[in-house]
């Protein structure tokens, strides 16, 4: 009985070949990446001249996209580490989804920052002449650390699944090579299991301060300046709360897509959606709280320097985007997800999308309007220096980084089980055995 069950779990969760939709999806992502790469080559030849950034809006969607990636990568630590330490048992099917999102996002966060550099050829200067006093160096350090920890956090729980994958002969030649390369040493001995469990436990504690650091330090890239809208002592907490929200939203979207495409209804259940819905409500309310602090408190005072910035958001050139993000990206999800019907998979997917898309534009609203509200008025520059709308090259490069991250996730899912097989078996089959044992 339990052996049948075990085989069924293995059969259900083994990585599957791309279907028709999968092939179309993958090819589209590759095409988008290729276009983005072409645009980037163009940028390397011409310089940042091809962007819409100019001396006032000196940072644009490259930077806001970078912040978005760092934000969404925090979900790895939320679902895997925080849920683990707080004993949330239903997390198991979500851990690997969130970890691969984290790894893909943090890789593209690093690339996004290189894309923004005026002199990418001098990248090595960051190490040759590193100045530890600069918040950028702090970011380099914590992001590298977080990437390493996230990869370990993805890899260690994957180990027990590798013998199962090798035995199943799935994944084709490439897959089998990888499985053997990554995990042929794993025999599942008592000692190995103990070491792995201990390592995972240590990482899940270590990764929390690192995760909080990556986004806090990223917020400090802004908060360490004097500018209206950035000069805030709340910025670290504001960014971290927003990061958890977008991360949870991203996981919800991924849950829905994997569940539908790989028929995982038995593993990612409606209960999971229901629980994640409640988590989303809590995180959205938390983020709204910080938004009230960031916008309404300065608005109450309306200091001269803040006025131009706040008015550009409330009623000015960014108002449509600003209110859409606040209402669609935060308030609507909260309202919908308060109802049990709203926490069913389909509405959850829609709300997750709203949260993620809203969060992307929210990062844009943090970066651009502030730069267009300098202390001294914008003056003695051509008219196009006074506003910012990204060029097609910027869009192409930015969208291709998003596509690239999705591509990493897609290929990962093609070769590795997106729901941990071994853990699922342990959770579902072993308790039954124990129960049987108890009867006797």
């Amino acid at each position, binding site marked *: 009985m339990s052996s049948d069950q075990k085989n069924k779990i293995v059969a259900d969760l083994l990585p599957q070949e791309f279907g028709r939709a999968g092939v179309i999806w993958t090819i589209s992502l590759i095409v988008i990446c290729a276009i983005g790469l072409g645009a980037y080559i163009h940028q390397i030849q011409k*310089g940042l001249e091809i962007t819409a950034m100019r*001396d006032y809006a*000196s940072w644009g969607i490259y930077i806001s996209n970078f912040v978005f990636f760092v934000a969404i990568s925090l979900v790895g630590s939320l679902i895997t580490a925080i849920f683990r330490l707080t004993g949330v048992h239903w997390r198991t099917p979500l851990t690997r989804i969130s970890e691969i999102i984290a790894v893909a996002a943090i890789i593209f966060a690093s690339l996004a920052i290189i894309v923004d*550099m*005026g002199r990418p050829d001098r990248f090595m200067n960051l190490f040759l002449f590193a100045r530890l006093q600069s*918040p*950028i160096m702090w970011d380099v350090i914590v992001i590298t650390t977080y990437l390493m920890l996230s990869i370990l956090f993805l890899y260690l729980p994957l180990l027990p699944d590798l013998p199962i994958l090798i035995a199943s002969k799935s994944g084709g030649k490439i897959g089998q090579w990888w499985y053997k390369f990554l995990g042929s040493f794993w025999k599942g001995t008592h000692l190995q299991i103990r070491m792995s469990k201990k390592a995972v436990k240590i990482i899940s504690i270590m990764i929390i301060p690192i995760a909080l650091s990556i986004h806090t330090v990223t917020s400090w890239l802004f908060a360490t*300046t004097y500018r209206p809208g950035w000069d805030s002592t709340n910025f670290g907490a504001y960014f971290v709360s927003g990061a958890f929200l977008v991360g949870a939203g991203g996981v919800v979207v991924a849950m829905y897509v994997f569940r539908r495409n790989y028929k995982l209804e038995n593993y990612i259940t409606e209960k999971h959606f229901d629980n994640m819905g409640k988590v989303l409500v809590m995180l959205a309310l938390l983020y709204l709280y910080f938004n009230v602090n960031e916008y309404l408190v300065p608005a109450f005072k309306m200091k001269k320097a803040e006025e131009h910035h706040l008015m550009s958001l409330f009623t000015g050139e960014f108002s449509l985007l600003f209110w859409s993000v606040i209402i669609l990206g935060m308030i609507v999800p909260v309202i919908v997800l308060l109802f049990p019907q709203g926490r069913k998979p389909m509405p959850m997917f829609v709300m997750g999308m709203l949260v993620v898309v809203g969060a992307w534009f929210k990062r844009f609203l943090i970066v651009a309007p502030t730069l267009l509200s300098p202390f*001294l008025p914008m*003056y003695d520059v051509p008219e196009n220096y006074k506003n910012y709308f990204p060029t097609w090259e910027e869009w192409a490069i930015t969208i291709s980084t998003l596509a690239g991250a999705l591509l990493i996730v897609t290929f990962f899912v093609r070769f590795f089980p997106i729901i941990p097989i071994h853990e699922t078996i342990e959770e579902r089959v072993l308790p039954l055995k124990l129960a049987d044992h108890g009867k006797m």
Partner: protein
Amino acid sequence: MTELPKIVPLSEQKSRRDFIKGAVTAVVATAVTACSSKDPFTKAGENETKASGEKVKLLSVTGEIIEVDKAYLKPIPETPHVSNEEARKGIPGKKFVMVIDLAHCHNLKKCQSACNHAHFVHDHQNWIKIYPMQEAEHTSPFWQPTTCMHCDDPPCVKVCPVDATFKRQDGIVLIDNDRCIGCRFCMAACPYSTRVFNWEEPILPPQALEMQYSPETSCPPKIGTVSKCDFCPDMVRKGELPHCVSACPNGVFYFGDMNEDVVTNGSETVRFSELIRDRSGYRLMEDLGTKPSVYYLPPVDRSFPFEDGLKTKS
């Protein structure tokens, strides 16, 4: 302005590269005069140099190879190349300050054009801007030229990840365009919006391309890096005033050394401390704690009405 004669001494030790570099800057006319028995550019006392008979070959700007007697070659006095290390240290014992007298500015923009000319700055990225300012609705408008403030607590230097922008012992904040990675964090950090970025490959006249780069001249500008007002340390090393100071016909800009307590606008030299005290000098955005090295004298007893400045073509 006419170029002073430039002849580069050549010795056996100099590499071929240096030979070409030096020779290219040699002006053919001067080389020809140097060949004649009398060198009109050296002072009478020094003019007794005898021809040594040893000839050296030079490449003229028109591409001809000419021969000059070695004894007549003089080093270029005006462009001693300052090493990167020296440029980062600054001039010992100095603390440079600027005082901008708002009472006399009426937006002639001579400072701006002189600065742009000297640093090959194109119109979009003026290092000097002359803002029409009005503090409140019923207060009087005035013209406010801004340069880099060369803060004593510079926010831009704090955030630079690679030490490409730095504060020198003489108070000047410079950029090393050979090191800058173009992250533009300094631009976000500067509250005075004084920094500009070379978004495209700078379009430069030939003489700019020939220049050997130094943070002190900020020339030639380099694509993908940040530029800004540098207080003209190359001029200061020669004992001359920054271009904006000497270009202003109204004596708006005073430049000098705080340690000596002297500033000058070219025609008038005054005690810095007295000028600031007697005319209520102040600095911009004092509340931010950046401690600028640029002081302003309030626009009182003005020599021109504000409206005069509106006539200047931008």
